[in-house]
């Protein structure tokens, strides 16, 4: 070879084979983790979702705990004591003010717990009513979502797994229910159930909950499970075709076992996200109905009914509207943001 030699600057000692450790040192692999761990990590990083979650937790805990020790109850009309003339000095108090009777009590050395949000037109402590209303709204929202989830899951899995004629018929039914304008049907059912249920549940445990809420649950159970059912069915259909179902069947596994062990765990993230986003819409429906007067029975408050009542005295006591409005908005907003955050964190399609 006549060409000029290629020139390098090397340390000849380095030209011996590298050891495995040296090679491994070069490669700093990112630690792999499971799907859930990854998702949770992502979720926590999402500040908005995290804050929303905290807000929801705080509100929920307050709704549960506060009524336990608060000295006023949501239904007691202060000033109305059976056998004595009505004392209207308790009515329409502004926040942190005292009625005449109460001022007398203080002058006498008694301790009177302040009315943080004042009282309403019937002399009830407004703060505790708002808190109780929150409790009602949250409970209804939560349980309604659970009902929807359960029914939707059962219906959807059966339809999806069975396939064929059964699936077609079940889905046609879903289509029809889905095309029904839900709010109108809800209002219709609610207004009718209200009247028919009362005599039915008299004397039973359910009376305590109130016919309106029961009718609300019935309405949800009848109408709102369809989206969830469709979603689950879609998941099942796509998973059905996956390899491992075939292999499980090859080993003799029966239908039900297949559904439970293989298919459902994979839908879980989708289900959870959908359920999480279902709660705010349930709460919204409940407060909407309560606003129209079709929701909870008086005197039980709900955030919606409180808002409706507040419309009457709006010019004088605007805070009576603003407070429940703010709470509902916080709850629904918080749940929506959290649900969005969940979806961003766990939805495999959105990543990479």
């Amino acid at each position, binding site marked *: 070879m006549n060409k000029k030699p290629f020139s390098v600057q090397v340390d000849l000692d380095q030209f011996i084979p590298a050891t495995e450790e040296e090679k491994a040192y070069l490669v700093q692999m990112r630690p792999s983790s499971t799907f859930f761990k990854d998702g949770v990590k992502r979720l926590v990083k999402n500040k908005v979702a995290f804050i929303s979650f905290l807000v929801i937790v705080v509100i929920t805990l307050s709704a549960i705990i506060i009524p336990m020790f608060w000295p006023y109850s949501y239904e007691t009309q202060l000033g109305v004591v059976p056998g004595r003339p009505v004392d209207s000095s308790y009515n329409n108090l502004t926040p942190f003010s005292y009625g005449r009777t109460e001022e007398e009590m203080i002058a006498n050395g008694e301790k009177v717990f302040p009315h943080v949000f004042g009282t309403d037109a019937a002399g009830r402590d407004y703060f505790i009513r708002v808190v109780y209303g929150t409790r009602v709204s949250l409970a209804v929202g939560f349980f309604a979502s659970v009902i929807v989830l359960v029914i939707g899951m059962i219906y959807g899995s059966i339809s999806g797994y069975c396939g064929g004629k059964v699936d077609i018929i079940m889905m046609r039914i879903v*289509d*029809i229910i889905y*095309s*029904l*304008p*839900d*709010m*109108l*049907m809800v*209002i*219709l*059912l609610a*207004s*009718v*159930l209200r*009247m*028919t249920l009362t005599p039915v549940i008299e004397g039973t445990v359910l009376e305590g909950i109130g016919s309106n809420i029961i009718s609300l649950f019935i309405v949800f159970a009848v109408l709102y499970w369809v989206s969830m059912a469709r979603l689950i069915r879609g998941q099942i259909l796509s998973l059905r075709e996956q390899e491992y179902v075939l292999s499980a069947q090859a080993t003799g596994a029966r239908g039900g076992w297949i559904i439970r062990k293989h298919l459902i765990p994979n839908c879980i993230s989708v289900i959870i996200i959908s359920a999480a986003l279902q709660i*705010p819409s349930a709460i*919204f429906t409940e*407060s*909407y109905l309560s*606003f*129209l*007067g*079709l929701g909870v029975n008086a005197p039980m408050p709900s955030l*919606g009914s409180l*808002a*409706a009542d*507040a*419309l009457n005295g*709006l*010019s004088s006591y*605007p805070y009576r*509207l*603003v407070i429940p*409005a703010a709470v*509902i*908005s916080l709850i*629904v*907003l918080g749940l*929506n*943001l959290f649900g969005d955050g969940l979806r961003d964190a766990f939805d495999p399609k959105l990543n990479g």
Partner: protein
Amino acid sequence: MDSKTLFYILKRLLLAVFTIWVVITVTFFVMHAVPGGPFVGEKATTPAVQAAMEAKYGLDKPLMVQYGTYLKDVVTKLDFGPSLKQRGRMVMDIIGDGMRTSAKLGVIAACSSVVVGVVLGAVAALRRNKIIDRVIMVLTTAFVSMPSFIMGSLLLALFAIKLGILPANGSTGKGLILPIITLALYPTAYITRLTRSSMLDVLGQDYIRTARAKGVSGPRIIFGHALKNSLIPVLTYFGPMLAYIVTGSLVVEQIFAVPGIGRAFVQSIINRDYPLVMGTTIILAALIIIMNLITDILYKVVDPRITLE
């Protein structure tokens, strides 16, 4: 239009008709769960009206016969019978009056939502992650989470009562501004977000990359390639938007005292004017179902990719 599309339209049409029939039937039988039935008024009804009911529906006849009569009247003549509580007025007339006002409200709210929503959504998508985008996202998230009656009440409290610049009563003219805004807030926010995410999605597609690789310029990519594809999801929202406006109007008309069909509906429930409740439910439901049908068909026509279920 090819035969496949025609077939699809026919199928959807039949489903819509069937669903309307289901609505009528469900409404009828559910209302009969009320003690005594919906056509028997309480003491507040005049004997004249009561007699009219009896003649019309044959209240002593078996239920199925009553149902048949009702169905026939509704379907052939749009006759929902006389109102139980409003003397001398037929349900359909009451509905007609109410619809005039509510339709005006609804159409204006819907149109402005679409226009504003699409524009804001496109702006947000094109200026992704910049300040304007973040502001838009925050605002829309807020408005999407607030129930219409909350917004309405707050707007009423703020503008009508505290500031006094807009009338609280919604009967005419300026009084309609607040109700329209209230109704339009949620759809606008929703459409904005929808347009934004749809456009972002489209802009990330391979065919946009192809267009760029061919040398197509920025604005042309947006208006030519991206916009059409981005708007398709917005189109599918028209049906739900109408449903929202209908249900929203129930509360909005209550809050602002607008004499529309929404308020009439709520009043009829409170007053137990059952024929009016039934008639309104059916008409509004039919409206929503038809709107959904039109949306579905339009979607199929616009996007040639959509295959039949």
